[in-house]
């Protein structure tokens, strides 16, 4: 089974302070810690598990600057065989659709049985690279996958619906699946494995190598262009309780008591 996994190098923002930059169209990236997109971590783990069962190769692909090599190295350490990174200053301003185009041009000449991506990236949350890529490649796809098995040369997958429901689908191969968190338990990667991965080569491609021009990507080749960023309005007016933990706890108890909750 030859598997391609598309991954993204993203900033960790759940716990970090986010500031909108001077352009008003992006966040201040400096000082943020970047790592593999959460959904992609499950995707690469799933690919490694399939390879361990059935043999074959894993190629990881990303679009991003040199820093993104650390995400690729993590994938190599987990068990990927090859890594490709597409980089070009002209890619700046590209939305998820333009990224899908780039990935298509990397993949179109390759041999594969399966492509895995994350359901979405934690930064732009577009959830569209996978299915658009499948359309461009003309292969079947399924999104939000929580389980993959193979039977008679076909994939049997569980895809997530709302409210804890799932549906089971049979999909012809080659196919593309977008992987949902919780499909597996990503393994711990040892320092040794990461060190070994340092020796593996990362192939770097430019837009020209792919026969693409700036118009194909960037804002011109994108579906959407960010105009402005702002802090979301609050739905409820929150009252902050401050003070020592002791004071805070007393206040909460008082609120609960007043409402007859304790």
């Amino acid at each position, binding site marked *: 089974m030859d598997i391609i996994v598309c991954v993204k190098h993203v900033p960790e923002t759940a716990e970090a302070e986010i500031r909108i930059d001077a352009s008003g169209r992006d966040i201040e990236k400096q000082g943020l810690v970047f790592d593999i997109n959460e959904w992609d971590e499950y995707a690469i783990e799933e690919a490694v598990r399939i390879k361990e069962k059935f043999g074959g190769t894993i190629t990881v692909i990303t679009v991003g600057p040199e820093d993104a090599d650390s995400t690729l190295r993590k994938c190599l350490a987990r068990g990927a065989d090859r890594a490709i990174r597409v980089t070009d200053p002209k890619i700046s301003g590209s939305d998820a659709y333009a990224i899908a185009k780039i990935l298509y041009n990397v993949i179109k000449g390759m041999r594969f049985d399966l492509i895995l991506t994350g359901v979405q990236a934690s930064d732009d949350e577009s959830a569209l690279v996978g299915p658009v890529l499948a359309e461009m490649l003309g292969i*079947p796809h399924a999104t939000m996958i929580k389980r993959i098995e193979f039977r008679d040369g076909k994939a049997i997958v569980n895809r997530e619906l709302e409210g804890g429901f799932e549906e089971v689908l049979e999909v012809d191969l080659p196919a593309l699946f977008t992987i949902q968190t919780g499909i597996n338990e990503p393994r711990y990667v040892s320092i040794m494995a990461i060190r070994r991965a340092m020796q593996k080569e990362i192939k770097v491609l430019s837009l020209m190598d792919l026969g693409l021009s700036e118009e194909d990507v960037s804002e011109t080749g994108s579906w959407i262009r960010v105009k402005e960023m702002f802090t979301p309005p609050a739905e409820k007016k929150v009252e902050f309780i401050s003070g020592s933990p002791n004071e805070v706890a007393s206040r909460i108890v008082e609120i609960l008591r007043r409402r007859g909750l304790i």
Partner: protein
Amino acid sequence: MVEILVLAEHRGGQLRDITFEMLTKAINLSSKLGAEVISIVLGKDVKSFAPTLAEYSNRVLLVENPLFEHFNSDLYQEVLSRVIRELKPLLTLIGHTSYGIELAPRLAASLNIPLATDCIDITFENNSLIVTRQMYGGKVNVRAVVRRSESYMVTVRQGSFMVQKPSPPLGGRIEELSIPMERVVLRKRFIKYVPPPPGGVDITAADIIVSIGRGIKDKSNIPLVEDLAKSLGGVLACTRPIVDKGWLPSDRQVGISGKTVKPKLYLALGISGSFQHILGMRGSELVISVNKDPKAPIFGYSDYGVVEDLFKIIPVLKMKIDEVRARKE
């Protein structure tokens, strides 16, 4: 004529809320644009939906076929690409749901029309389509311009628009479309539904919920919050990552892919407040959140907020609650 096409979503014989949320937004846009609202519904047996959809639309397109018994994005794509090519609606709205995520990106790419996903607002300004969507787990909002086109597609986030029934009802014309499907070769086939595992704790019945997120850091800290929940006479619930890691069973998950709860008290500990989670707890009567990040989106959905390390609050809080209870007994 300018048209706004809305894909009605249904499951288990019921139109889903997102359908009416999108129709409400479509009606609102149509009055500004002088547009017609057209709803389209696909299924094995969808005539029963027509009267309701007609109240919210100027035209209702029914596409019935035994093949559509279960949602299959390949079949939907076949039908919708034909309809969109013929009708050339200015805007097509699809829910940013499990079904929409599967369908819309591929449909838009095949038709070569620009798509903006997971939008919470939609406006037309100077002939441009402008959408509002969120990034970074709800920490920032973005206004984005969609590439100029004759036809646009937008997927709409659930719970973004409050449903308003038009009065008087629009009384839309009901039309049946027959679209030949014999030639379609299915490369993806529905096998069955899997319901959530039975049994477990019913968090939807609880008056008091203590809910934890990734801020709890480690499985070994769970007894701490279990004790707090017990003192409060409530149940323990959580965000998705806690279930993904196997720290709590899936029946404890609150959110779009878990349970929807409406307790008297929702105590959110170390939860960032991503929208997928918010959708499951928004109806709570009283929300108190503890998070060490003052900018955490959860505070925008809370009545009271505490910016603090949850591990400093929990033990003291439990102690004080136990004191009150002891005094009462």
